[in-house]
């Protein structure tokens, strides 16, 4: 029987590969056979591993228990089996899928679909957010946190962090030009920058008291923040202001780079991170930022944004290339497996037969 199976498998493998020469009836036969057997086998397994143990057996036992209950011959087992009657509810909900076959009752299919979607969405949303958004964002930022070893539970640090977040939100709201800017908005920037500065001071103070940041790292951080503020200010300012402060983006980016070198040069020097780890972390952040910029269609892709999105396309293409390369490797693996089967198992059995 095993030898017969080997010959069938070998013949079907050759039928499938015959398509490489050209389309032919042998290939079509094997293809249709594969699809048919897959579906048939799947249904049988679903009945034996799903319907029978999850629905049929518990319901049979429950109805048996119910019969004993009616007959008045109650046992603990028959009482326990009665719980199986609750399975009628999911079974009935599942059976509503077949209402689709009746034009008059087709609307009933909405209920099982609604339950499925509701369950799926309820289970998925918090977990997908946690696994694919929060954890991934954390993973992108995590290498940069390696330099900051201050106690996260410290109240000084927490207050500082909260003040900085509030400051950032208020300051950003000042630049929200989609809504009418009244005089009161001008105060927002002052309050925001003030809160942000105090928050920054708190975090730095906390880091110093907890030996979290060295003097070099603090200097580097300040340079980077100044660089970011300078560059950011240039991009949000008016055309007249840009003409006045043409030097601002160059100075800002220079400060950013110097600050970065100061911080991470020190980190590498101290052995907290290897140069390769710093390079990888920076590359990931640049990749994420540029790729997201490419998909940011709310602004016109011109100037700096155009260049950033072009770099994003580069990252995307590298990603697609890696996926394509791996796909080729995967397809080859399938072929190697089948060739191994034909040579070692099938031809091997023939050689063994005559040898």
């Amino acid at each position, binding site marked *: 029987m095993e030898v017969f199976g080997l010959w069938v498998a070998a013949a079907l493998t050759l039928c499938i590969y015959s398509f490489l020469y050209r389309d032919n009836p042998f290939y079509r036969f094997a293809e249709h056979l594969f699809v048919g057997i897959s579906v048939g086998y799947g249904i049988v397994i679903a009945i034996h591993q799903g319907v029978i143990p999850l629905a049929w057996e518990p319901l049979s036992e429950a109805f048996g228990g119910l019969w004993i209950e009616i007959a008045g011959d109650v046992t603990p087992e028959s009482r326990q089996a009665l719980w199986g009657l609750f399975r009628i509810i999911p079974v009935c909900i599942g059976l509503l899928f077949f209402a689709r076959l009746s034009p008059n009752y087709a609307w009933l299919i909405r209920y099982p679909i609604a339950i499925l979607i509701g369950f*799926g969405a309820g289970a998925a949303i918090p977990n997908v957010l946690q696994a694919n958004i929060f954890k991934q964002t954390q993973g992108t930022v995590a290498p940069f946190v390696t330099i900051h070893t201050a106690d996260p539970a410290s109240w000084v640090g927490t207050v500082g962090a909260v003040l900085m977040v509030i400051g950032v939100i208020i300051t950003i709201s000042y630049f929200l030009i989609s809504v009418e800017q009244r005089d009161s908005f001008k105060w927002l920037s002052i309050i925001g920058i003030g809160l942000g500065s105090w928050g920054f001071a708190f975090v730095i103070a906390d880091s110093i008291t907890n030996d979290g940041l060295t003097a070099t790292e603090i200097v580097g951080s300040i340079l980077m923040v100044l660089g970011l503020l300078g560059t950011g200010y240039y991009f949000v300012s008016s055309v007249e202001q840009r003409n006045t402060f043409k030097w601002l983006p160059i100075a800002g980016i220079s400060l950013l780079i110097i600050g970065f070198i100061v911080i991470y040069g020190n980190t590498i020097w101290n052995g907290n991170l290897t140069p390769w780890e710093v390079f990888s972390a920076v590359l990931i952040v640049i990749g994420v930022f540029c790729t997201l910029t490419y998909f940011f269609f709310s602004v016109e892709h011109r100037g700096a944004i155009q260049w950033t999105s072009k770099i994003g396309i580069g990252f995307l293409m590298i990603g697609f290339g890696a996926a394509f390369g791996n796909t080729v490797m995967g397809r*080859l693996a399938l072929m190697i497996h089948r060739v191994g089967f034909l040579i070692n198992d099938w031809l091997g059995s023939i050689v063994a037969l005559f040898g």
Partner: protein
Amino acid sequence: MLERFMNMDRRIIFLLIALVVIIPTLIPVRLRITVSEPTQKLYDYIEALPSGSNIMLAFDYGPSSLAEPEPMAKAVMQHCFSKGINVIGMTLFPSTVTLADKLMKKIADENNAVYGEDYVFLGYRPGTLPVILGMGTNIANVFDKDYQDTPLSDIPLMANVKNYDQISLLLDLASSSTTETWIIYANTKYDLKIAAGVTAVIIAQMYPYLQTGQLVGMMPGYLGAAEYEKLLNAPGDGTVGLNTASFAHLLIIGLVILGNIAFFIQRRKEA
């Protein structure tokens, strides 16, 4: 000459690929294998587990993609049995039930492992999400019996295994996005440690999970199987497959380079 090359019958390429696959299969060549970090991490994690720990193997691939996950399953199960780690098998794919059952029996026999004491195969239950979430509360609520219809309460191995709390690692042998589903539901909700043994097609999308630590390790395709076999010092199907694949990759790289050169020459001529 260039014209003939550009219009070459694609069946010549198929023939060349067939030759570079058949020849190394007939005349095995042993190439040097270096172990990558994701595979090393998985090996180290299993190596550090004490004897008597439980590992769950999810056979989440179909018959059409078993070439890569099967050598991985063999290598990991061999490692587990040699260290006295229990293996609990299950699948989210209906078409894999008999394949996985047969494979587990074969590897167990080779390693003198006893069913019910060293390993168990739970089988398949429909509905990916309810299965993964349900096992987090109580495995017996989802699989009240194993694949051989034995109640879980009668299986010695399962006596102390109630839910994911008693599972040290889930290794998902996958050919599709099931690893992500395990991460999203079992890792995020129940903090179950997850590793992946994936077909080459989905390697790229697994790397972000490795970087964040949501995957403790990964075996990437034939390469991963071969690397794991090297760590065990037991060359098997993964090593043979990788050696053969290397020649095919060389041919494909050569063809890509030739195709590009021909394309640019032709474009220059047309200009």
